[in-house]
């Protein structure tokens, strides 16, 4: 619910929003009869004090004519005394207004996003829900906004993972560790799918590691639901508010010098310091937990990044680059 720092604030449409709340409140009361203000506030997702203010606008409204009988009747004694909402003389507002264009679009796009990551059973429910909304005229506004399916690696496994969580069954996953360029198979008891920052994780008890582990979705190569049920170890979701996803190994502070073509690096990886280097370069300091991870990064942006410190990292990277180059030259091309 936050907008980017420094960006313009969304326009406030206080009156429109108030009228929107009232046009939902009256049909709600029509459905439920007289209601406690706290119940109405909860059901409609409105603050009770705000609802009280809204009601004081409502009783100033009604049919044109100016006679007392034309106005909507709000029982202020009941409101102030018992905290009960009683509204009469507003039968023409008995039905909620059709979805506004933004409302329909926002809801339909959100449902489609849920559909993409849902298990096959849940997906069927989402499709039914979407069909009902579209029948109610919500489809056309959604043509102006489109959110492409998440094609990030691992997203295609979400339905399987989500299904196993819903069924309470164990999973066999094939997991890839990039820093070792290694893939291994493990049996896990899935707990939940969790998002931390931009990455999505499968939170699970891992039989191979004999402990709680968080698996990055984009590194799960395959997943199969097993027939064994999860044990009580996977019953309770963990509190993941602490920095649980960080590696616990020791890190080395590495200083890199980035040419302009590689200066996107600090936008993608957490860096401790940045300072301008010579000739338009940028020096950054990163905490590196794995030298092979660093090498991959350096190769990917080659030759636009070099290691300033520590020296042995610089040397091993150059040595590996020479080894790679030899593969091309020995093959007769280069």
């Amino acid at each position: 619910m936050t907008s980017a720092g420094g960006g313009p604030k969304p326009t406030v449409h206080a009156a429109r929003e108030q009228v929107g709340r009232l046009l939902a409140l009256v049909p709600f009361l029509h459905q439920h009869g007289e209601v406690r203000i706290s119940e109405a506030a909860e059901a409609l997702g409105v603050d009770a004090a705000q609802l009280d203010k809204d009601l004081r606008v409502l009783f100033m409204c009604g049919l044109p004519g100016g006679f007392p009988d034309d106005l909507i009747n709000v029982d202020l004694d009941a409101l102030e005394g018992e905290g009960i909402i009683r509204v009469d003389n507003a039968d023409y507002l008995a039905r909620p207004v059709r979805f506004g264009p933004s409302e329909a679009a926002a809801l339909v796009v959100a449902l489609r996003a849920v559909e993409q990551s849902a298990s096959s059973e849940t997906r069927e429910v989402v499709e039914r829900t979407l069909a009902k909304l579209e029948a109610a005229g919500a489809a056309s506004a959604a043509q102006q906004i489109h959110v492409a399916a998440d094609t990030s690696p691992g997203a295609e496994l979400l339905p399987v993972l989500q299904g196993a969580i819903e069924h309470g069954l164990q999973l066999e996953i094939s997991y890839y560790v990039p820093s070792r360029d290694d893939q291994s198979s493990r049996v896990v008891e899935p707990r939940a799918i969790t998002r931390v920052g931009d990455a999505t994780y499968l939170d699970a008890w891992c039989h191979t590691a004999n402990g709680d582990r968080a698996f990055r979705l984009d590194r799960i190569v395959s997943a199969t639901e097993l027939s064994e049920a999860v044990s009580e170890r996977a019953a309770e979701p963990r509190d993941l508010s602490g920095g649980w996803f960080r590696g616990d190994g020791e890190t080395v502070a590495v200083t890199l010098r980035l040419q302009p073509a590689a200066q996107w690096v600090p936008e993608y990886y957490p860096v401790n310091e940045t300072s301008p280097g010579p000739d338009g370069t940028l020096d950054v300091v990163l905490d590196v937990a794995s030298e092979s991870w660093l090498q991959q990064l350096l190769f990917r942006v080659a030759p636009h990044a070099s290691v300033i410190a520590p020296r042995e990292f610089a040397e091993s990277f150059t040595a590996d680059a020479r080894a790679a180059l030899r593969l091309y030259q020995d093959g007769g091309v280069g």
Partner: protein
Amino acid sequence: MAEKSERLLNLYIMLLAQTRFVSKQDIRRAHYGEYADNPRGHEAFEKAFERDKDDLRELGVVIEVGSLDNYFDDELGYRISPDTSSLPEIRFGADEAAVLGIAARAWEQATLARATTEAMRKLAAQGVEIDTSRLDLVPPSLRAEEPAFDACWEATQKRRVITFDYRRPGEEAASRRLQPWGVVRSSGRWYVVGFDLDRQAERVFRLSRVQGKVTLTGKSAAYDVPAGTDVQAVAHNLVHRTPDIEATVLVRQRTGVALRRQSSSIEEDVAGPDDASGWDRVTVSGQARDLVGSVLALGPNAVLETPADLRSDVVSRLRGVAS
């Protein structure tokens, strides 16, 4: 705020309660008494009335405009029909209501999060009860961090022309005028699709490259989106103009898992550049830059075979490090 709220609600009730069209004069007399009967007052009234109609439309109200008189069609009137403006009766099962509850938490962008809340409130008003405890599902996260998003979305909804400064990489920022047709998110970025008034052609703009403020100009409903426009298809065609390239890569056995994962075929145990390990030939498709980057990232565990221009690209970049 209370006065404006009262006026909006009273206007709605007036137009809803009448079966005939109501003239602008009658509307003005009933709800806009504060505007003086002189040219300035007329202008101020027209502005306020337009804004109020916009607000009602944004709430979902359909305002019908029609002729007041069967014989003379020069005077227009307004009315709201309960049939076209009311939410059709929808009933949801408990499982469907639970899914709606999950979707209601997906938007992490203020304007659309608020729009979802308002939509859910209308469903609650109709008697839909949301209980998400039935479903153990994480809502997907839909975001729009780009500051230009709000204005582009609003302009798309209102069909108003926008102007903004746009900077392509390596170029100076230039001012653009666009009739926006829609917004599209792809690979984590938002784009606005529309008709560029200066180039007189369909264009797609990446919102993160918009510099400064997006300004809405001119009237609402200033243009029509061509019938049958599929904003997703337009964006896709204009953004991905370069077709994917197919490359073959020799990969040392037991390495290159990520590259193998995106491959279309793997030929095992082929002749490689050295005998330190066995080698496989992996065929992958993608954009040139990404392919070169993926092969480079494998260091001495991969050799890009074909196409030749990508191969020499890898070689020259390795030389840049090794020398």
